[in-house]
């Protein structure tokens, strides 16, 4: 009976040979470059167009499906309105009373997911190609919730209180509002309601508003 370990066992105990180490080194180097590019290119750091193109062409095709094309951009908060608590309210179109939408009475990590969803609705309004996409997708669920094919939805935020006593939370503000209805052909129509402050005043020919 031989007391010599097998080649595979000996290699595993003493480390890899030259060729496997060389292959692993190349793979590691490629991955680490990709990791660096995802951090630089996804973190809103103002990375150059070249970085974006290299990452998009060479690295994103295999990093994206594995959920590894991440910027790890975790500021936690910038102290801005976008970080404030969001919630969804709905009503059949024409009603005067708003009802709490889904996700309002949640807590912990579950509530955090609802917050991300609603923030995505608001922030995607500034992203070309994504405007109105998420609220339009809400259609079927909201029609069922309201029992109507014509609903209003709005996303409210609670502005942050200043760090002073007495603690006073400002009044909630509607940050997004839209009407969503199903047309006769089954097609959905989203009519975004612009906030009054975003609409330019009408100026009469005489110069007075």
């Amino acid at each position, binding site marked *: 009976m031989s007391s010599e370990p097998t080649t595979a066992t000996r290699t*595993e*105990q003493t*480390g*890899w040979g030259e060729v496997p*180490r060389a292959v*692993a*080194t190349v793979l*590691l180097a490629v991955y680490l470059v990709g*990791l660096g590019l995802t*951090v630089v290119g996804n*973190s*809103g*750091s103002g990375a150059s167009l070249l970085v974006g193109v290299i990452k998009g062409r060479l690295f*994103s095709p295999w990093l*994206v*499906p*594995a*959920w*590894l*094309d*991440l*910027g*790890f*951009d*975790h*500021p*936690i*908060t*910038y*102290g801005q309105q976008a*970080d404030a*608590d*969001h*919630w969804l309210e709905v009503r059949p179109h024409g009603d005067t009373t708003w009802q709490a939408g*889904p*996700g309002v009475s949640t*807590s*912990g*990590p*579950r*509530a*955090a*997911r*609802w*917050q*991300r*969803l609603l923030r995505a609705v608001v922030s995607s309004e500034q992203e070309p190609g*994504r405007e109105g*996409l*998420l609220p339009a*997708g*809400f259609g*079927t*669920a*909201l029609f*069922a919730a309201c029992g109507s094919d014509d609903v209003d939805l709005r996303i409210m935020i*609670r502005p942050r*209180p200043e*760090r002073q006593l007495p*603690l006073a939370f400002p009044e909630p503000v509607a940050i997004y509002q839209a009407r969503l209805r199903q047309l006769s052909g089954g097609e959905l129509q989203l009519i975004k309601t612009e906030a009054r402050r975003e609409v330019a005043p009408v100026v009469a020919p005489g110069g007075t508003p």
Partner: protein
Amino acid sequence: MSQTAEPPATEVAGCSIGQTWEAFWFTPADSRPLAAVRVAAGTIGLLACGSYAADLTGWFGPEGLLPVETVAAWRSPLAFSLFDACGSPAALWAAFVLLAILFGLSAIGLLTPIVTLLAAIGWSALLHRGPMLAGPADDCLAVLLWCLVPGTAGEHWSLDAWLHDRLGWDVARPRVRTRLTIGLLQVHAAVIAAAAVFAQLKGDVWWNGTGLWWVTTREAGRLIDLTGPLLASEYLCNLLSQGIVAWELCFAVAIWFTPTQRLVAQTAVVAWPLVGLLIAEPIWGVAMAAFTLPLTGWFSAAE
């Protein structure tokens, strides 16, 4: 008289870098620390699944808020999800329960190499089904799972190890694959912490000490309410806010130096979950702690 020619400085430096690289990535390592990471990752996966379960059909069901067509138009064209094919609530729940079972199997260590790979694929698929729902903890869990795939996390403290023991198979030994995995975990932990620091330093609130105040005033997702103590003491608010940034910076740097590595890693096991609790991202805190487990020295083989 003989003279010995000294190698040029660049050659010495290149040799030193090469040796450091070889030692960091290719020195065979014991897999007990990876077993600890595997148990942690499986448990974190179950917790993360728990935060999806109550709203699963409400988000992804046939009449959910996030229809497949909407999400497909929203996410990257390169992304796809196995959950897209789940057209009925029953299929959706079956896929979701299967994923939860994979996390459970990962935690107890049964069929570890296959289960870890399937859990990583399943988790990525779930995140791609609703990318706008994903947060820092989800990102970190995905990275944790993919890092574990090449490793040998089932050789200790697992059903696999128990079965191998019963069958008389002695498979546990130091391996290069284990060292590669530990190295990847270390790199990612440092990168995540460093990126978080840079992101925070872009805003004024982490410089002027009000960062934690703004986090605490968010009620959704909050586990503890610190508004009272933070209002009462400006110093406490500044200390905690700037302490979080200082900790992240310290971690990202000190994890690379031998004299400080073990101390920082051991501190991280407590500090990251505390930071997670303060910033209302408890699972993120636990996931960050899991990255550092192999560097604590607590799970190394006895000499």
